[in-house]
């Protein structure tokens, strides 16, 4: 792993991943919507690790900019060994129920924009015959629940997309990792009620990097979420639909 592009680099999990990769001397491109925040993060990594870091503006919602964005990232580091997609948008479930535009926004950020940018990366890596793609999906995509099913369905779609992409790229030696974090102690979850077994972003980042190196397919992190979700998925729909989850 020599050069890696991180999308949504200012998210809590992304920052933790960036710190760990920078510590190993990986050439990083940090991309996101706020140049100010990105530069602050990059400055931090430079002081801590004396490492090369570049910042790039990236707006997931404007699909037509994706190809040019990817090309300019490549131009900076020569070639990209990997891409880690960390951005996501929880949105407001209630609002999404009344406002189709908001629902579309949630779906676009969590799903369709990922299809656009990850296909560009996939085509490039497939041609070269190496590289990795990693995207943060969610355990919320494993089963629809009334409290966040718009977000959940977009993440579920992302997981299926990654599954297909993995199948397509298997023969070209490009690995695709789907990450399904449980509750992680980030800005997104801070102050939310009813959370349990909340993991530190550093722990999740360690798991993700190890899974990328081992070319794993699907990572639940922390690991026990695989079993929690297995149980949740096994509840019969006739029972599940009556639960208030």
């Amino acid at each position, binding site marked *: 792993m020599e050069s890696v592009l991180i999308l949504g680099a200012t998210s809590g999990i992304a920052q933790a991943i960036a710190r760990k990769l920078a510590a190993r001397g990986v050439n990083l491109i940090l991309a996101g919507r706020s140049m100010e925040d990105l530069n*602050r993060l990059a400055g931090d990594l430079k002081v801590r690790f004396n490492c090369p870091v570049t910042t790039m503006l990236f707006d997931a919602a404007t699909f037509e900019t994706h190809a040019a964005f990817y090309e300019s990232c490549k131009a900076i580091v020569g070639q990209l060994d990997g891409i880690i997609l960390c951005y996501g948008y929880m949105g407001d479930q209630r609002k999404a129920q009344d406002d189709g535009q908001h629902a579309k926004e949630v779906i676009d950020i969590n799903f369709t924009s990922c299809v656009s940018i990850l296909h560009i990366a996939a085509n490039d890596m497939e041609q070269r015959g190496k590289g990795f793609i990693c995207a943060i999906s969610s355990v919320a995509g494993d089963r629809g629940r009334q409290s966040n099913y718009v977000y959940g369905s977009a993440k579920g779609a992302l997981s299926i997309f990654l599954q297909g992409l993995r199948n397509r790229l298997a023969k070209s030696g490009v690995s695709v990792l789907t990450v399904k974090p449980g509750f992680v102690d980030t800005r997104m979850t*801070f102050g939310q009620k009813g959370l349990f077994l909340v993991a530190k972003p550093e722990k999740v980042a360690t798991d993700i990097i190890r899974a990328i190196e081992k070319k794993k397919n699907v990572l639940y992190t922390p690991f026990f979420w695989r079993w929690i979700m297995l149980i949740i998925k096994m509840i019969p729909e006739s029972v599940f639909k009556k639960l208030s989850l």
Partner: protein
Amino acid sequence: MSIMKQKMSGWGRYPVHESFVARPEKNTELTNLLNNVSIPNWITYGLGRSYGDTPLNENGGTILTTRLNRFLSFDETTGVLECEAGVSFKEILDVFVPRGYFLPVTPGTKFVTVGGAIANDVHGKNHHVDGTFSEHVLDFTLMLASGEIVRCSRSENSQLFWATIGGIGLTGIILAARFKMVPISSSYYNVHYQRARNLEEALKLFSESDDQYRYSVAWIDCMARGGSLGRCVLMRGNNASADQVKARNPLPILHKTKLTIPVDFPSFVLNQLTIKAFNALYYRIHPRDSHKLVGYESFYYPLDAINQWNRMYGKRGFVQYQAVFPPETCREGLKEMLERLSSSNRSSFLAVLKSSGDENEGILSFPKKGYTLALDIPINDDSLFPFLRSLDELVLRHGGRVYLAKDSTLAPEHFREMYPRYKEFQAIKNQVDPNGVFSSSMARRLKIVED
């Protein structure tokens, strides 16, 4: 950004106050919080190592600064580090020890933030030589109640600079600071251990030879009485050079294996007998006079090796009491304090005596020339509080004062006598924060701000 209602406490786990807690990650989020009209006022909370109610804000707002923890720049030629206020001393050491730099001043735990170190004007084993942490701070940026960001230094907004140093977070939110790191060629220390049979002998050793050691502290057995009153082990030393260490890597980051106290100990665990036994043992295991090479972790941070050691004091928590006595009265003051302690059968598990250097211009800064004694006292019942009140009076009588970072019980009238410049502080506070956007449980208790 979410705000949640939560019970908060300092390291002594007393008192516990409920407040509205937010954890911003950017400066813009801070401005939004200050503009939030539904929360009456705010105080910042770093790693929660001040002991009492300094960072608490009952029914008000608490801003956690731990995610505002980015390094901003480091100048290799001058050793000046610039970082956000939520960066911890631990993070700084992890990054800079291998590069040959150490913190200019550190308290007895590395789990403090840069912001907390300035707001409490922390000191360490080298106070008699190097002063407090703030004395190495070149400047910092402060977000005022209005959301305006100002730079403060000795020449720019200097009044605000000295009000913020030791100002327990009441002038604004410290965003970032620049301070000078100290070059080291090893992360080890040559430590000289010496037993002193009583207070008299300890003070003699301190005054005779403290100038030979950059770092100096004594662990004192508070349970000893009579002729042994104030017996202690002096631990004084200097940074070792790389050739003295003779290790392949003289600059290791030293992390001790961690022990965690998983639950609150029942209150009987630390009782008179166990504390007495521990203190006697601790005194005995140290040879009368010896030299040893020790890593920075054991030298500065022996207790950091035990996660949540504050749980040893049980559910009711404990208070830490630290007072400084001026040189003229220190002998009498310390003696009286130790006598009170042992005759009332109040035990202190850990007590630390240290000589302190000149005071700085920080308006509410604690250290001043003389000797400082720090005690941990478990809260077994409410009779402790009148006892502490009597200690406050004793300290005042000898011209001393107590450290706000450790306090949870001081009375406002005693505060005013101990910190006679408080009116100056209030004047500056009123100027930069006329609507009282920054307040805390401590500030209201000590009547630094109006209720």
